[in-house]
Structures are given as structure tokens and as C-alpha cells.
């Protein structure tokens, strides 16, 4: 369904880009063994469909995605590891092809930020929960006994003074 938004792009995108020959669609997933299929799914789930919004190569059937799938299958058959195949696609298309930020350069922040929050938060939380014993006399909280007593004491001292 999402594919339909992109029909105009398909024509452009299936043309050879960056001076490279287009990948061919010549391999079928069904020829892989069960373990290889799992590897295939893991890999194609990490690559974004270049012509869709928010979809992985695995989820899409656009010509471009099919080409990538086919290339993945070929390389799995050649016995390349997951890292090698990912590196191949990173070199060919740039980081842009990835669906998760890589752990390098600026993109560290995408991973460090949540981790930092978790660590810092837990630290503050632990300290706060252990120390949380408020010592203020409840100003701003209406009608506490403390305020009543305080005021009565105040009034009494005023009366005595008079």
C-alpha cells in the first residue's frame, strides 16, 4: 500500500545510480536453508527500502528493494558473514541505507543519550528515594495541624506581649 505513493520514484530509482551497474533480480529466498533465511531476514530488516517511507527492504516489494534482497541472497550464498554484507551495503549506499544509527561519529549520541539518561536517572532516583524526607514546614499546604499550631503559638505570644 505504501508502495503506491512512490510509483513516480520507482522509475528514477531503478536507473543505475552513482555510475554503478544496477543489481539484478535473479535470486529467490526459497533457495536458502532455514538458517540462511533467518540471516536474510535479520539483514534485510536492517536495511531501509530506499523508495519507501519507514519500511525495511524486507517489508517492501519495490523493484529497488527486490534488487537489494537479491544481492543479499547472493552474498549469503557466497558465505559472507552478516558484518561483511552490512559493510558492503554501507560502502555502496552510505550510512543512509541503515535503519538504526551506526555506532560511530555523531551517531554515538543516539545510543549514548538514552543510556546516559538511564544511568543518571537511576542514580538521582536512588539518591532521591533514600533521602526523600521533606523538612519544610508545609507552607503552601493549607490547613495542616502544623500551621494551625504555629499560628496559635504566634497569637499566644502576641497576646502575652499585649
Amino acid at each position, binding site marked *: *500500500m*505504501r508502495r*503506491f*505513493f512512490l*510509483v513516480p520514484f520507482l522509475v528514477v530509482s531503478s536507473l543505475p545510480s552513482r555510475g554503478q551497474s544496477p543489481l539484478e533480480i535473479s535470486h529467490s*529466498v*526459497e533457495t536458502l536453508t532455514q538458517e540462511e533465511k*533467518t540471516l536474510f531476514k535479520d539483514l534485510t*530488516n*536492517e536495511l*531501509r527500502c530506499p523508495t519507501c*517511507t*519507514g*519500511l*525495511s527492504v524486507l*517489508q*517492501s*516489494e519495490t523493484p529497488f528493494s527486490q534488487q537489494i534482497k537479491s544481492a543479499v541472497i547472493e552474498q549469503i550464498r557466497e558465505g559472507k558473514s552478516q558484518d561483511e554484507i552490512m559493510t558492503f551495503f554501507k560502502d555502496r549506499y*552510505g*550510512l*543512509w541505507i*541503515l*535503519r*538504526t*544509527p551506526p555506532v560511530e*561519529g*555523531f*551517531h554515538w*549520541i*543516539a545510543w549514548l*543519550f*538514552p543510556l546516559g*539518561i*538511564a544511568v543518571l*536517572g*537511576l542514580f538521582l*532516583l536512588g539518591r*532521591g*528515594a*533514600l*533521602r*526523600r*524526607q*521533606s*523538612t*519544610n*514546614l*508545609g*507552607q*503552601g*499546604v*493549607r*490547613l*495542616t*495541624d*502544623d500551621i494551625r499550631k504555629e499560628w496559635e503559638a504566634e497569637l499566644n505570644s502576641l497576646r502575652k506581649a499585649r
Partner: protein
Amino acid sequence: MLADYGYYLLLLAFLCSLYGVVTSLLAASLRHRRLFRASVVAAVSGFFLTLGAALLLWAFFFNRDYSLAYVFRNSSNDLPLRYTLSAFWSALEGSHFLWTLLLTLFSLIAHLSFIRDNEHFMPYVSATLHSVLAWMYYLALTYCDPFLVQFPAPQDGLGMNALLQNPYMVFHPPSLFCGYTLSAIPFAYSVAALAYGDITGAWLRTVRNWALLAWSFLTVGVFLGGRWAYVELGWAGYWAWDPVENSSFMPWIFLTALLHSLLVQDKLGQLKRLSLVLSFLAFFFGFFGTFITRSGIISSVHSFAQSPIGPAYLGFLGAMVLFAIFLYGFRAPLILPHRVKKAWGISRESALLLTQFILGTFGVIIVVGTLYPILSELVTGQRFNVQAPYFNTFAPYIGFSSIAAITVGNLLRYQSDKMLGGKKLQFIASLGALLLTFVFSFLADVFRSSGYAFALQLVGIFLCFWGGLCLAYQAWVKARAVRTSVLKQLPYWGSFFAHMGVFVAILGFLGNYRGVDTLVTLKSGEQTQFQGWVFTFPGIAIEQQENAELYNAPLHLAKNGVPMGVISPARAKYPTKPEMLHEVGLRDGFWEDIYIVLSDFAQTGDEATFQIHINPTVKFVWISVFLMVFGGILSLLGHVIYGGRTSWKREEGIPA
């Protein structure tokens, strides 16, 4: 001509809201009771004026009067009646209008309810609501005027977006918008509390009711959106961490956090300022979501409406943040926590605070992930779109730690580190959960996955059952302890069902983490086998359904030689649109859904290519939403029926 009346109605409503702002601010500064009544009148008349304008717009739709540009662009003569109704909110102008309409409705109710309890700061509530409304009217009159006229009027419209011609899209936007607009009221009350400089018991009760209502609506809205994506988009999933999906989820997270901080506030009189911040965030992210959708700043599949409204929205959001920071910065020191005798240590309030923290962390991760394209473009110059796998890396840990926090928090008591049931319960629950994990794993076919994912799944399933058993024990204890009326316990039972819903949802997510699928091409009469199911394809049939022409490719299903019905994936051709849309074929069972998409078919009708997905435990996710919403409503009912008693008030000796 008639369209001009619509515009003038909106203009009058705009003036009403301005009047409301002025009178309520005056009423607040002069402490003048009757001036406040003037702003109530403004709310009432604003609502009826907006309602009139909305009815007028609907009338244009039902009369198929294409002299209105909005009607022309979003409907056509062939549109069935129910979609003519929902075409109202199928693009920017109308959805903005619907949002405004709902906001006036709830602001009207807020102006008329709970006012005796909150009399001393109602003018501030009113001023906040009226100024948000004024802003909405201003946009409706300038950037997204639904009453723009065109001449001459065409005979037929361009047609409604075919993706939105789905029953779920009739209900999804209104319920989601109800959630967003309802969260404006806790926000308004928070502004009022800061402006007035105090939080009272009545404030708490009122805000809790509104927050519960908003939460329930938002849950329904998010659910319907997911369901719509599942049956309409054809990628066999219901949640893809798309920016627009995220932005409906962010307010939900903050509302959930707000409900929990209100709980601590109720019992101990602490975390008051946190409640204020959370209610602001819940409201802010509702608006923020709209901004993302409308401005086209981040690409999303759900961006059905784009316009130059972006910069105006950004200005408003910025103003809102600045206002909130200044107000909070100057006034928050006035709002002090109630005195507590003991340090929190290990206790229910600490567990609740931990829940806040987990939810908040999740919220921040989602915000960062959603804004990452902009962030990375600013810094590196290259736009990097963060997609589902990024969020899915964190989701399990967030899920598991919330299960732990929910369970432990429920078993603990306030101001005490004694756990209900003690070691004995932990032993029995762990053993039972172990057993149930095995049963569930076999029935839901979890063993398809392997390695790290498999380990995560097993741990998660175990935790869900452990939590479920512990909460069930607590429920049993509670049920035996009923003395006077079960109504007093309703809020507890609400939370019980909502938490159980969370567990069921996580079970569902874990189960369908890894579905299986295959792509097959069949000639008519041929059959194929997949995961024990046999699919027979008789050939393509064309049928007319409402305004769409359906190219049906039925598959007859059989398991172990027994026929199990027919699934009909199809392609639909709408008269006003050139492309052919997917109609998913779905057989939803308890343990697994069979989900078939017609990928391609031959014009001759005797060959078709199918994408067959088998998705385990999707049903669990839908069930969980019913549990959660049921819990929310139960809790709300409990608070409304038996509202007056908040425990810290009892301690203070204040009559309820």
C-alpha cells in the same frame, strides 16, 4: 453565500474566545465571581457557534456541494454515506476543525463541572482554555479555512483519499483528538495551580478524572490507528515506529506517567510539581504530533495533510514552551510537598517514581528517535532516518522493567517495605510462571526465533506471567477484603485490569515479534502449503462493493484436510483514483492471524501472486487494549461515584 456564514460563525467564535480570555483574566485579578460567569458564557457560545459551523460543513458534504474547495478536494459523488461523514476530517482543514470542535466541547464541560470545588482558580483554567481556543480559531480563519469557496462549482469532487475509506478511520481521528483535547484540561488546571500558587485536594480529584478520561480516549485512538494500519496498509504490522505513530504515543506515555504521579500526590501529598510538568508534556506532545503531521518536516506515511501551517505552529509551540518554563520557574517554588515522616526507601511510592522514570526514559527515547532526522541534519548535514529497529532495541528493556516496577509496586505498600505474600508468593508465582511460559511458548510457536531474540522472548513471557500471577494474588486478597461496598475498590480494580492489559499486550508483542511469511504465485486451481495450512486458489472474481470495484482473489483454506473457510485478499479500484489499493485478506484466530496480501495478478484472472503472513498472538494486542480501556473507565467511574475521599485529606482532618 452559505459558506460565508460558516466563516463568520468561526470568526464570532474567535471573538468569543478572546472575550473569554479578557474576562477570565480580569476575573482572576479582581477576584470577581460574576466576571468569571462572563467567560463561562463565552465558552458556551463559542461551543454552539463552532458546532453550527461544523454542521454547516457537514451539510456541504452531504449535499455534495462542490462550491466549497475543501468538499471538492475530499469527497465525490460516489462516496458512501459513512465516509461522507468522515470525509469531514480527512484532510488538514477538517481535522483542525474537528480538533477545535472537540476542544470547545470539553472546554465547555470544564467550565461547567467541578467549579464549586475549584472556584478560587477557575478563572485561570478558563483563561488557559480560551487562549488555546483563540489560537485554534486564528489558524482556522487564516491558514486552514475550511470554508474557502470556488467558482464555478464542479459537478464532481476529486474524491476522498482511498486509504482513509476504512471503518477504522471513521472512529480513529475523533477518539485520538478527544484524547489530545482532553489533555488540555489537566494542562489548564496545572497552569491555574501555578498561577494561583497552590494545589488542593479538589484540584487533584478534578485533574485525575480528566486525565483518566483523556487516557482512555487516547488508548482507544492509538489502538484504532494500529488496527487501521494492520488491515489497510498491507505490511502485516500494526506499529512501525513511524513519526506520526510515535507522536500519538508520546502524549499517552506522559498521561500514563501523570496518572501515577497523581497517585503519589493523593496518598502522600508529594510529587506535586512533577504532576504539573507531566500534564504540560502530555498536552504539548499532542500539539507537537499535529505539528509533525501537518508541516511535513519529517516524512511519514500518515502525513495526509500538509500545508504552510508549519512555521505558525512552530511559533505557537515555542511560545507554549517559553510560557510554561517562565510560569513554572517563577511560581513552582510556591507549590510545596506535604511533609512525610519517613524516607521513601523501598516502598510503593518509590516503585511509582521508578515507573515515572521508566516511562519518561521511553518518552525521551521516542522523542530523540523521532527528531533524529532533524538533529542529524543539523549536525552532520546528512539526514538520517531512524526507523523501527532502533526503537525495538530499547523496547524490551523498557517493557521488562515496567513489568517489574508494576508488579513490585503493587505488592508493596506506601511507606513500608513489606511485600504482600512475601517469599512464598514469589516462589509459587515464579514456578507457575515457568510452567505457563512453556505452555505459551509452544502454543504461540515462539520457537521459530533463535539466539538473543529467543532469550529475550522467553524472559519477557516469564516476566509477564510472573507479574500476572502476583497481581492475581493481590486481586484475590482485595476481593476477600471487601467489607462495605465494592464501589470503594473500583479504582483499584481499574488499575488491576489496566495492568493486566499491559501484561497481555507485552505477551502479544513478544509472540508476534517474529512472524513467518512466504511469497507464492498460483494459477487457478492450484494449491500451496505453508506452515501446515493448505491454500487453494480458484481464480479471480470481480465484484462491486460500495464505490469500489474489487478484484477478489479468494484462497480456500484447509488444515489437515478439513476446510477452514475462505480468505479473500483483493485489489480495490476507486473511481476517483488511478491506482489500485490493497484489501488485505485476514483470518484472525486466537493464536495466529493468517494475513494475505494480493501482491500481483494477471489481467486474465487465472494467475495471482500472494504474500502469505502468519502472525502469532496479534489477538493478544487487541484484547489488551480492551482490558486497558475497561480499566481506565472502571477507575474513572470509581473516582466519580466515590470521589471525595483522598487519603491525605483524611489525615489532615478535612471533611470530604
